[in-house]
Every structure is written in structure tokens, then in C-alpha cells.
């Protein structure tokens, strides 16, 4: 398992940060699935959580704030043999990256998107993020947040994601199982991870979530309406697990060019005099 961790660079997160659980979940899942590190690309945006690729011994790309999904799509479309994991924060993905999230899900690109959802901006020292609950006091909401929180689960469902799940950093084993399922899923898989920021969000802590989260069991994951209803559940009881999983052709399956196999293996078209005849 150590094979998946970068031996030179230890994680720089605050002790106790929820991101550690996700690092473990990713490395354990890759080990369980026996995916060669050389065939994995972890793409991220910008934020504390987005530092993830630096701590991994896979191919990693730490790109721009909110732009990890287009980058990851480009990687997947270039070489569909790769396992592509996009990993970012809630500010990153649900503010600047919102439309990429929507459209990547809608296209059903075969990548796994994991969000470290701490309801604040970590790296920029604690501003309210799109998932901040009403009333949350932060540097930018000193009187308490007044904006309705973004619901990643119902948003992903609306967008057409074919795998929608929620995990919790306080439950690594469960999170690893979700990660395995998400990577195995053919199509766009999304995991929103409730992941406490121990430095800037004192309210939504492990202690806050632990008594509230419960494992989804026995729900019909192919039933959209049920998944949507469960996605709205938030309060004293917060479901974690797989909300929705269905099979739908991926973008790569349907595209005229991509369906002929990984683009990287396809021959480059050599222009000939015959080709020029079209322009005569």
C-alpha cells in the first residue's frame, strides 16, 4: 500500500484534518483493486484538499482552482486505459467548478470525482463555502451564513451522474468501500465526503457528524426518486453510502472517434494527396 504514497513528500495538512482519511481511502482502494500506480492519474484543483496528488506515488496533476474536471476529462479522452480520479474541495468544485461538475456528470465521462467537503475554504483561511450551513460564522460571514447551502447529492443527480455517494472522514473503512465502488463504476462517479476542517470550522466537527451519520442500507440504488429524497435528508440524520448507481453508456462509448479505442493508441492520420482532392 505504501507503493501508492509519495515517499519524499509527507502530507502537509493540519493534524486531524479530514483529508487524511481520504488519502487512506484512495490508497487502500487502489491497492484492493490492484491498479498499477503507473496507470493512475489523480487530478486536483486548488485548496488544502487539492494538495492530494503531491502525496501520492501515482501520476498527479495539481491544476487550477475549480478546473480539475475538464483536465481529468482531457486525460480520460486521451487515454481511456487510465484510472482517472479528480479530487478537490467544496469551494473549488461547487463555486468556480460548478458548471464543469454539471457538464462532466451529464456527459458521463468515466472518471471518479471525490470532493473533500468541509463547508469552508481551508487554504484561504476559513471563508464560507457553498455548502456552509445557514448561520455558520466564518471570516466572510461574521454574522452567520445566510445563503442556502448547495446540495451536492441532488445536484449530481440532476446533472445525470450515474454514481452518487456520500462518505465521512470519520469512517475510513466505509469510505474506502465507497471509493472502490466508485472507481469500479463505469461512468461518472461522485463521492461527497463530509470532511471536517479542524482549524476553520469548529461547528461541523467529527463530534457533530458522528451521531448524525447513518449507513444507507437496502435502498434501491437504481430508483432516482428515492435517491433524490434521500439526498434531501439533512439534519439529525445524515445518510452516507451509495444513493444512486445506474449503467448508462459513457461519452467515450458513444463518440464516433473515441469508441474506436484509446485515442493514444489510434494512429495519427497521415494526410495524402488523395485527401487534398476534397479541396479541389
Amino acid at each position, binding site marked *: 500500500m505504501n507503493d501508492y504514497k*509519495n515517499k519524499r513528500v509527507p502530507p502537509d495538512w493540519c493534524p486531524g484534518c479530514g483529508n487524511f482519511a481520504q488519502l487512506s481511502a484512495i490508497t487502500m482502494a487502489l491497492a484492493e483493486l490492484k491498479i498499477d500506480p503507473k*496507470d493512475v492519474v489523480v487530478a486536483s484543483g486548488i485548496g488544502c484538499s487539492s494538495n492530494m496528488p*503531491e502525496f501520492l506515488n501515482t501520476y498527479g496533476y495539481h491544476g487550477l482552482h475549480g478546473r480539475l474536471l*475538464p483536465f481529468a476529462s*482531457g486525460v480520460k479522452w*486521451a*487515454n481511456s486505459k487510465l484510472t482517472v480520479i479528480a479530487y478537490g474541495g467544496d469551494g473549488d468544485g461547487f463555486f468556480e467548478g460548478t458548471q*464543469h461538475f454539471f457538464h462532466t456528470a451529464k456527459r458521463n465521462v468515466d472518471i471518479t470525482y471525490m470532493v473533500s467537503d468541509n463547508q469552508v475554504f481551508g487554504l484561504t483561511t476559513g471563508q464560507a463555502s457553498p455548502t456552509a450551513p445557514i448561520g455558520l460564522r466564518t471570516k466572510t460571514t461574521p454574522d452567520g451564513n445566510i445563503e442556502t447551502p448547495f446540495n451536492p447529492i441532488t445536484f449530481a443527480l440532476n446533472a445525470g451522474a450515474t454514481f452518487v455517494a456520500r462518505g465521512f472522514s470519520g469512517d475510513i473503512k466505509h469510505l474506502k468501500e465507497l471509493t472502490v465502488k466508485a472507481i469500479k463504476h463505469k461512468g461518472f462517479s461522485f463521492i461527497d465526503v463530509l470532511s471536517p476542517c479542524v482549524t476553520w470550522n469548529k461547528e461541523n466537527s467529527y463530534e457533530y457528524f458522528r451521531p448524525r451519520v447513518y449507513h444507507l442500507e437496502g435502498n434501491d440504488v437504481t430508483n432516482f426518486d428515492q435517491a433524490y429524497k434521500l439526498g434531501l435528508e439533512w439534519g439529525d440524520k445524515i445518510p452516507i453510502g451509495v444513493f444512486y448507481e445506474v449503467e448508462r453508456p459513457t461519452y467515450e462509448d458513444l463518440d464516433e472517434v473515441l469508441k474506436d479505442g484509446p485515442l493514444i493508441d489510434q494512429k495519427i492520420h497521415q494526410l495524402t494527396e488523395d485527401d487534398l482532392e476534397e*479541396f479541389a
Partner: protein
Amino acid sequence: MKQNEVIIRVAGAAGDGVQSAGEILIRTFARSGLYATSYNYYQDIIRGGESWYQVRASDEKVKNQGDGLDVLIALNLDGVERHTNPEINEGGASPLGKDGVAIFDSSIKNYTKRETNYCPIPLSDIASKYSKNPLLKNTVGLGAAIAAIGIDFDILAGVIRDQFGKKGDIAEANVKAAKEGYDYYLANYKPLGKKFKYGKKKYMLSGGMSVALGAVAGGLKMYVAYPMTPASSALHFLAQHAKKYGVFVKIPEDEISAINTTIGANYAGVRAMTGSSGGGFALMTEAVGLAGMTEVPIVIYEAQRPGPSTGLPTKTEQGDLNQVLGASQGDFPRIVFAPGDIEEAFYITREAMNLAEKYQTPVFVMSDLYLAEHYDTLDGLDLNFKIDNGERAKDNEEDYKRYLITDTGISPRAIPGQAGLMHNEDSDEHNEYGDVVSDAITNPIDRIKMMQKRMRKLDTYIEEMPPTPTYKISDAEYVIIQWGSTKGAVEEAIDILRSKGIKIGAIEVKNVFPLNPDIGSLLKNRKKIFAVENNYSGQLSKYIAAQFLIKPELITKYDGEAFYPGALANEIEIRIGKKKEVIKE
């Protein structure tokens, strides 16, 4: 007017089929073995706006739309009036003179009689015999025009058949209608008496198509772009040829996505490109620096149109140079090209694909609406080319450093999937391994070394740069600095001025960034240096002036139309004091 040259204009309202008629014409010339070029004047209106399409053909190379007009096909009264009226000068276009012929529908009557040959033809009546489609009257007009010019009718018939290919009956109806127009003209009016030496059939491409084709020749496998005029012609061309050329083409949600997707594909080892125009490109700028920092190859096609903001969407200008040179924060190497014509657009874009991969940095191909959208003829293209993937690391290389400090600034790349070369590429400053050193206290030395390594790529590139292209420069007292699509008009203006004994030449700034150091010596000891630019402030001129400590005299045009050679030559004559300015009351 030259005997071996013809300038013909189709004029009408948007929706009248002006453009498709024009394209049939230029293809007819090309197939008959003449060189031709086109000029598209249109407005940002889907229906109703006035538009015209001009084709200039000759048995010698034609470099631009040219001065003068021989044949007009007017599809409405406004078209007749506008193009015979010397008072109206659309972007510099000349009206039809006394030697010219105006072909239009006989039902158009109340036009102002001016000194020209009016040739009314029952276009609509003839057309209605073959189809209810009113656009058929254009075809009748085309037949008549071909008769006036003296081109073999069968060539026009062939082009029409190809154009309507799949719809057999429609094609035949059009051919018959064109033939009646042809016969009617010869029965009633005099041909122009043109004499051409017909050569071999020519190929025909627009600048946008040429950029796209050049990219394909350079190994393109993915084109991701959001539509914006005038970059869209490349997007459309590639989408239509996706299957044939094995190029994956995608419109994503926005330009930010387009460029980041393109970077992802290049990172994963596939040649990918994106394209847009000013406003769309503005959205890409953050990612341009990302490619520069992470050293991922990328080719960006930037097709200019007049700004600021959405500006004049259907007009031409060269106003985005500052934007391209300044795109993204910080310093990082970039290479910027400006092809001057359709042929250069092909070869430069193809080369750009190699250079991006060799230097692992953003490479720009800049064009403008005029270059992107006008068709030009070619004798052929040299298709020999070697794709060069640059330096790649070998699998399982020991202690692999993605950003190895080298003398050339180029570090061997590893592609995901390669064994034993796993590493992280980072938008933050990093050391040779790719590990982040963004905290200056951690390692300021790494930062300095890495900046210098990246920037060294430019010195390496300057060494391999071909000499600056020039035109009639050896004995020139006056030199024009020119970039991009002004090339044709500048060269023709030089020919006009030379015929009057003025010693003038031009340098073409094809390598816009980095500049070729040889420009300095090319400009030495001249009486005067002019900079001809299709923008307000002389963006290239200012930047060259700063680099070479010279002071070019600006000749600019920013009305949305391209330069006309006659007007340009005239302006230069005035500027060098050979001619007095004529002030119109």
C-alpha cells in the same frame, strides 16, 4: 483593368445565398486553373443585413481582394446602387466602373443610371422554370457571370453538381438554370474579353480550414473549443472531418473547460489543440500560464476580431496581440506565430504542433477574421513532415526528475502509463521532482533555478528560428513592418509603389514572440520605417519599437475591413511626400 484578371462581386441581403454563390465562383476559377482569392463582407445579422462576397481571379497569384471591380451580380436593388455608386466606399472597395458589367434581375428597374454596363436578365423568371426555391436565381446569375468572364460552362456545371451532390434533381435543375443564364448573357450582351492562361487545377482552402488541416498534418488528435467567430471555421471543419482524420472534436461548457481539457489531453500524451477569439481567449488566460508552469505542450489558435469586448463580430482586426503576449500572470516561455496567408497557416500550424511538444510550452497561432474566413487557392501542399515528440524519459529511469534542470531548459517528459516515472506536475512552483516549493522560506534557490530553466527554452528556440521573411528589401529605402493577414495588401502596395520608382520593401513578422533578433539588422539604415497594422494603436509596432529602439511610423486601419493595396500605396506615397493629400470636401 488587367486582361488576365477579374474581380467579381455578388451582393445581396443576408439570407440571399451570397456566400454560397461566391464560393461556387471561387471553386469554378480554381478548377479552371486560375488562382483566386475571396473577400467576405457581411454583418452580424442572420437575415436582412447587406452583404457581399468578392472573388478576384487571375492566372498569376492573387494576394488579396484587390482594387477595382469588373462584374457585379446584384441580388437586390440595394446591391445595384451600392456597388455602382462612387460615393459609397465600403471599407475601401471600389465601385463598378464604365468597363464593368452589372448583372441583376430584370424586375429591378428604378436604379440610378451611372456609367456602367447594365445587364438586366430575367433571373427570377428563368429560375422559376426549374424550382420554387428563390435562391435558384443566384445560379442563373452565376451562369451569366461566367459567360461574361469567358469561363468554360462545364466547369461551373461540375462545381454546381458537387455542391448539390446528394440532391440529384436539385443539382440538375441548378445546372439547367445556370445554362440558361449563360446563354441569355451571350445572346444579349458582350463578354468582357478577358484572356487567361489556364494552368493546372488549384486547391482551395480558407485560413481557418488551413489552420485545422495543418494541425491534422502535425498529428492533431483532439480539438476542444467553444464556438466564437472567427475561430469557428476551424472547429466546423474539424468536426466535419473528425471521423475521417481520427480527431476527437468537442464543444465543452466554456472556454475555460476547453483549454483545461486540452491541457489534460496533451499531458496524457495526445496532441490536442484549442481555439477561440478575443473574449473566449480571455477566459483561457489563467490556464495558459498553467501550461507554461507545468510544462505541458499546447497549441492555441487565436482568431482575432475587432474589440473591445464583443466588438464587431463579423469584421476583421489585429487587436489581440497585447492580450496574447500578456496572457496569464508571471513570466513563462511562449511562442507566438502570425501566418500571413493560407499556405503559411498550414505550415506554421503543423510546425506549431511539433514546437509545443519540443518546448513543452504554449504555442499560439494567431489569425484574424479576414485570414480565417476568406478562401484562397493553392497549387498543392508539401505533405512531408516528421512528427517530433521531443524528449521523453525512458520507462523505469532511476531517480526520474520531471523538471530536470538542463542547459536547453527542456526536461524529458513522462506520460501517464509509463512505468516507474510517476510524479506530480504542479501549478505551484516546484523543484526538479515536481514537489511543491511554493513557500519561499522552504527553498528560494529552487524557485530561481526553475524560473531560469523554463525561460531558457526561449534562448534555445531563438537559435533554431528561421530568418525573418522579407519582400523586395535588399535595396529598399523604405521598409514596412507587417504581421499576419496584411501581407498580401502590403506586398501588392509595394509592387504599385515600385512601379512608380519608389524603393520600398517589407519584413513579415511571422514569429511574433519571441522576435527574431535579425529584425534589428533588417531595419538598419533605412530612410523610413512604416508599420502597417489592422488595429488602432499599432500593437506590434510598439512592441518592436521597444525591443529594437526604433520608431516606426504607423499606418493603421480599424474600420473592421482589411487593407486594400491601392489605398495603402496611396497613403504611403503621401507619407513620403511624393504625393499631396487630396482632401475631400
